[in-house]
Every structure is written in structure tokens, then in C-alpha cells.
């Protein structure tokens, strides 16, 4: 978005730069921000607030709301699994110069490495379908995007719901995002 256009943003709508390494998280968080009525801008664009999944890049000068980041000196500190209403409230508060904290001991903390054997892992195809669900796509659009039949899409979506124990698409995306914390490793 150009600077001229962003200046015309109506009051109450904030320009929010969403920073997340994980593409699925970035998509999901951008959606939360947009649905709360704000404008998602590029990571380097002028922004009122940065919403960072975990730690943001060092030297960030703009006000930051972190989700599960380790830096408690940032103005906004929420847990990794904060809901849409908490995220909206936090970015508004931080852009107004307030600081946002969770009550003591509410966030993630230092925990053990979990093994993934306990539940059915997703297949690579199911992960692809999940990414399209996070974008809010319909079954028809998913079929076109992944070049598979509508029947196959329904099959994968049902399998996702079963493996994740979800009843709606939004719930599936949220549960997958939560599970992903324990199913990813960087080497």
C-alpha cells in the first residue's frame, strides 16, 4: 500500500504488519487482523503496529505485539494461542501507547519436547488442503487450486476434521496451528 493511500485509512482502522516465519500462521493471523477491520500491510511498509508470531526481528522500531515471544520488554505480550478478540484489543491498545500483559503465568513457559506418536499425523496433501482452508477458500476453489476433484477435496477435509477433532473449518485451522507447535523442529 502506498503512503498516500494509507494516510487515508479511516480512524479506528490500523495498519498492521504481520510477521510470521510460518506461512500458515501468517495467513491465519492476517485473516484475524483483516476480520477485525484493520489493514494488513507488508512487513517493511509503514505500520501502526507489528503483530509478530513469536520473536520479531531484532531492532524493530515500531510498536510490537508478540504472540508467545520471549522478549517481555515489548509493549504487547500475548500467548501463542491468543484469540481474535485478544489480538484485536492488544493491537489497538499498543497503537494507543498502552502496554499489554497477560496475568502472571498465563503464557506458554519452558516446556518439554513432545513426541508426535500419540495422534494421527497429517499427510503432505492434508497440509496443503489446510493452508487453503486458512485462506478461507471454498471446496470448489480448493479443487481448482490443487487440481483435484471436488470429491477428493471433501475426502481430505473430512479426514482433517477427524484427525484434528474439529467440527468447523476455523476450528480445524486453529487446532492445526496449536498442534504445529509440537510437530515442528528446526534443524
Amino acid at each position, binding site marked *: 500500500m502506498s503512503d498516500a493511500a494509507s494516510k487515508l485509512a479511516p480512524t479506528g482502522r490500523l495498519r498492521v504488519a504481520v510477521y510470521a*516465519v*510460518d*506461512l500458515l500462521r501468517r495467513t491465519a493471523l492476517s485473516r484475524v487482523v483483516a476480520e477485525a477491520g484493520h489493514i494488513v500491510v507488508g512487513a517493511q511498509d509503514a505500520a501502526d503496529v507489528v503483530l509478530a508470531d513469536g*520473536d520479531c526481528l*531484532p531492532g524493530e522500531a515500531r510498536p510490537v505485539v508478540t504472540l508467545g515471544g*520471549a*522478549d*517481555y*520488554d515489548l509493549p504487547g505480550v500475548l500467548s501463542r494461542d491468543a484469540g481474535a478478540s485478544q489480538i484485536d484489543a492488544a493491537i489497538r491498545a499498543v497503537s494507543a501507547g498502552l*502496554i499489554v500483559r497477560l496475568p*502472571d*503465568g*498465563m*503464557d*506458554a*513457559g*519452558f*516446556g*518439554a*519436547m*513432545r*513426541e*508426535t*506418536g500419540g495422534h*494421527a*499425523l*497429517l*499427510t*503432505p*496433501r492434508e*497440509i496443503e488442503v489446510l493452508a487453503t482452508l486458512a485462506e478461507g477458500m471454498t471446496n470448489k476453489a480448493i479443487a481448482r487450486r490443487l487440481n483435484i476433484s471436488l470429491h477428493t477435496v471433501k475426502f481430505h477435509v473430512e479426514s482433517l476434521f477427524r484427525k484434528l477433532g474439529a467440527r468447523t473449518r476455523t476450528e480445524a485451522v486453529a487446532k492445526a496451528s496449536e498442534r*504445529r*507447535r*509440537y*510437530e*515442528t*523442529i*528446526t*534443524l
Partner: protein
Amino acid sequence: MTDQADLLAQFSNALATRAEAAKNAIVAIRLAHERHITGMVWRSEIVVVSEQSLPRKDDFELIAAGGSVLTAKIAGRDPGTNIAILRLAESIASPSIAAGEAHTGAVALAIGADGTGGASARLGLVNLAGAEWHSSRGGLIDRRIVLDLRLARREEGGPVFDAAGACLGMSTFGPRGQVIVIPTATIERIVPLLLKDGRIARGWLGVALQAVAVPDALRETADQSSGLMVMSVVQDGPAAQAGIVAGDIILSVDGTSTHRFRKIARYFGPDSIGRKADLRLIRSGTVITVQTTIAERHAA
């Protein structure tokens, strides 16, 4: 007046004496917005802190016993064991620390810094003293010690003492606000390494991986039901140089199956750096082997 023969009064007096003495074992580490966290005076010039709560910066201001303000520089941090160390600009008096052994059901006294040079105290039980465990950040913690007490944010990072006055370790927050202890044995093991290098070396391929189910059609060829799918590749990292691309499913590293996270995390210890490793992986429906050289992970 307290009756010295009364057991409860004796107990209470003993605790108050311990809390008073512990003032010299702690410092407050100043954060922004008038807040602070606690640090343990480990040696006369070294303070141990909870890594997860320490801001990512180099210079800190501390408040020592009696309220004197000191400056300190970061000397090392290890997210794997949640231990960071600060080096003080000037030495201070340090209490001798005797390592204590945690026993389930034993009394635990957790000390925090009040931010003005005094101590705050919390009393509870060792809720659980268990075996060694691996953190989600890849470090090995010598024992699982969970406390049955509450802790304020500002008290995190302080020492936890047993009834004999020995130090069980450093308090920190586990999942869902649970108060856990990083054992003295772990601190004793990690601090010398941090003093030497500023970090704990770990092997690095430059990939983010997600555990996935191997698709049914490939299960027989792969001879494994799960693997780690490459979600992203760091530009110019060892994996990128070996031609690893997003979507590859890594089945094993030098014969170590990627089925168990703990095993694979252990494989990438300090001694893995520089080692050539064969990655067995699935790409476009076929199992292939790619050789990479493990590099050293840079600070996050």
C-alpha cells in the same frame, strides 16, 4: 514474643532467617516499564537468569542486596536449558551455593528479588521430582522438578532452597504457569560452556521441518510411517547447498530415523558440527539419499 519450644514458631523463624540470608544470593534485573525479574548470584561476578524472560539486549542494570545499582553485560544464553548468564562490571559478595537433591514432598523455599535490594519468599513442596527431560528447544535438563507454589513474574529466576538450605536450582515458568526448577546440576554443566563460548553449539542444516504421515502409497518403500517434511529452507544453509527443497520428506539422518524428535535432537549435538550426514528422503514419490555437511547453528 515467640515461644522457642513451639514447633510452628521455630519453623516460621527458620524460614524468615533463610529468606533474610538469601538477599545476598539474588539481584533484580531491571526491565522496561518499572518491572524486573530475578537473577541468581552464581559467582561474585556471574548472575544466572531465566533465558526465556530476559530481553534480547546486551546491557542490563541490576539492583543488588541493599539497593546498590550495578551494570552487567550478557555473557551467554542457552534457550535449550533456559539458562542465560550476565557478567557484572564489578564483583559482589557471593554466597556459597551447595547443590541440593530434590525429593518429592520435601519443603521448597523460592526466593525472588523485590526490586529494592530485598527478597520476597514463597513456600511450597517439591510437587514432583522426576527423571531427566528434553526441552522443546532441544536442551537436556538433568531432572524434572515441579514445585507446588505460585510465583510472580518478577520472582522468576531466583534460587529455590530445600530445608537444609541447599540450592535445588533456579525457578522458572513451565507450561500453563506451572513453576519448575532448572536443577543446580544443569546450571553447573551449562555455565562453564556459556562462559567459554557465549552459547551452546548445536548442529544445523538450515531447515524448518514438520512431522507428517508418509502417504500410504509410499509407506512400503519408505519403511517408515512418519517423517519430517521440509517446510522452508534457509538460503545458502547446508540443506540448500545440498539441493534440499521444500516438500522433501526426510526419513532418516545418517541412519537415525526422524520418527522420534528426541533422538534426532540428540543427533544434532555439539559433536555433529562438521560431520557429513546422509539424508534419506522422499522426493516426488521416490526415496533418494542426499549428502550434506552439518554446520553450526548461529544465535537465533
